């Protein structure tokens, strides 16, 4: 009986996860090494990959900083009443429930060229929608909960006593954070960062809507794949997709490693 379940599980994994991965790897080489190389090194692909990279770096850095800070406030701050904290707590999870397309739509509604804020920024020469800033904001929105949700439970679990002890010994805010709090949350933050990198790398729907998918200007790796598929240029799409998949697999390995370290803390 046992063997049956194990075999079935292997079958599920092979069919659902394994087969697609293999297929992508094979598909990229359908037109041989040249096809793959061309799909990957054509100018629009390089630009798109570069843009994706930029977004990943910016979004991860910003959300790491604000995410950790917000987690501290939501768990430790006494100046926030408990009702406020519960409310904010529930709000943190909202981006998970929002479809990426809707996420992009919200950015357009708030910061599009016809809106108040969008217009203001536009006259200052800063374009938000259909440009990089909008794409970054959309990705910030979508990845926002990831780090917060990793850090908050850990902060709650370790309790504030060590921090109080440090205070009675004369340490102040930054010292307490650096020497007492951070060592405890370090790996959870790393895990959260890895999740954020993976998500911002792969973000598609929100970015597609906000960017307008303008080649060489606002096209990311994922929206390039979409464009290729729409144009029936499957081999090229495959090449870029394979790079993304390989990146994701690498991230996945790092993810599992960081998760294990975080659980050990």
């Amino acid at each position: 009986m046992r063997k049956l379940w194990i075999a079935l599980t292997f079958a599920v994994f092979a069919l659902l996860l394994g087969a697609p991965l293999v297929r992508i790897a094979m598909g990229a080489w359908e037109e041989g090494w040249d096809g793959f190389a061309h799909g990957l090194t054509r100018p629009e692909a390089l630009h798109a990959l570069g843009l994706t990279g930029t977004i990943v770096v910016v979004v991860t850095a910003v959300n790491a900083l604000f995410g950790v800070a917000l987690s501290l406030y939501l768990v430790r701050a006494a100046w926030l009443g408990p009702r406020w904290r519960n409310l904010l707590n529930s709000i943190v999870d909202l981006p998970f429930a929002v479809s990426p397309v809707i996420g992009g739509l919200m950015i357009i509604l708030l910061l599009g060229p016809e809106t108040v804020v969008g217009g203001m920024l536009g006259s200052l020469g800063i374009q938000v929608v259909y440009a990089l800033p909008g794409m970054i904001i959309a990705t910030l929105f979508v990845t926002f909960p990831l780090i917060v949700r990793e850090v908050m439970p850990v902060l709650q679990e370790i309790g504030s006593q060590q921090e109080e002890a440090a205070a009675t010994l004369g340490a102040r805010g930054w010292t307490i954070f650096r020497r007492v709090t951070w060592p405890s949350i370090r790996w959870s933050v790393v895990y959260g960062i890895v999740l954020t990198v993976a998500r911002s790398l792969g973000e598609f729907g929100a970015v597609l809507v906000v960017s307008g998918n303008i080649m060489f200007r606002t096209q990311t790796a994922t929206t390039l794949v979409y464009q290729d598929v729409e144009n029936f240029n499957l081999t090229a799409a495959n090449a870029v997709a394979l790079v993304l998949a390989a990146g994701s697999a690498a991230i996945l390995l790092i993810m599992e490693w960081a998760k294990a370290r975080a659980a050990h803390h």
Partner: protein
Amino acid sequence: MHVEVRGLDKKFGSFHAVKDVSFSIAAGRLIGLLGPSGGGKTSILRMLAGLEAPDAGDIVFHGKRVNDLPPQERGIGFVFQNYALFKHMTVADNIAFGLEVKKWSKSQIKDRVAELVELTGLSGFEKRLPHQLSGGQRQRVAFARALAPQPQLLLLDEPFAAIDAKIRHELRTWLREMIDRLGITSIFVTHDQDEAIEVADEIMIINQGRLEQKGSPWDIYQNPQTPFVAEFIGESTIVEQVSQLRGFEAAEAWPGTKGLIRPEYVEIGPPGEFRLLSATESGRVGRLHFRGSEWLVEVEVGGVRLATYRSLEKEVLKPGDEVRVLVHRAYLFNDNDSWIMENKLKEDSLYVQI
């Protein structure tokens, strides 16, 4: 450091944790805050430390009002119930923490840490991490860490609650000696009577946010000032009609007054054991419980069931035995007043003796 507290008050939401508490502690004394769980003792301690802010009242250290000072600046050492050791630092680093914050020089820190490690009997464990230590060892690290920056006031929150019974006893003695040697003003919170009595110079009984009584252990035992204190300390029986007992007939004069009788107030035994036989009355032995160092004897007397201790040295009693019972005194209390009433027959008998 002399500590004074005036009119301390604290609410958590609708829960009134501390109600108008005032007390004064002389420098160098070791004070125990004793009382049932949830009574407010830890809240008082944390307010002294600056970890909570009082809603009203003043906290004065050595003549200076410290309400507005954060814990960092109050010159205190705090030992937490669950040690709160820095999990990622070695024993030595834990102890050194407060000194590094104060920016002592490396060599000064090294010397002081060595001194404390020696003092707390942790030699050889400096490089260990907290999870590699036993409960007793962790608690000693917590002490060492709190003492390192030479605080003026040492605060301990149920320091032995999480420790095995046998080690607890050793640690208590060790703590008492340590504090005597260092002469630091210390306040510790406990819900364990024996601990408070054994360790503290003075005890403050805290119940439901109020300070019931402050005094030496002996004082509190002998002269409980409120019914709660009388009942909380030691084991006792409440008697509705004290006048039923021989020698306490005068209690009739105060209707509605109940009596509280401690085991120590009651003496029982066969007639031959008593000098003042005329003051005794007849009683019947109920159940007996062996308590390791003595017997706990239940005795039915004057329509009331009392409990008392009986030494192992004396003749062993059996359930159903008829014995003589002498109730030396009773603690009487009603809504307005409370006092100790001696057995009248003891006084009269004395006259007869002469």
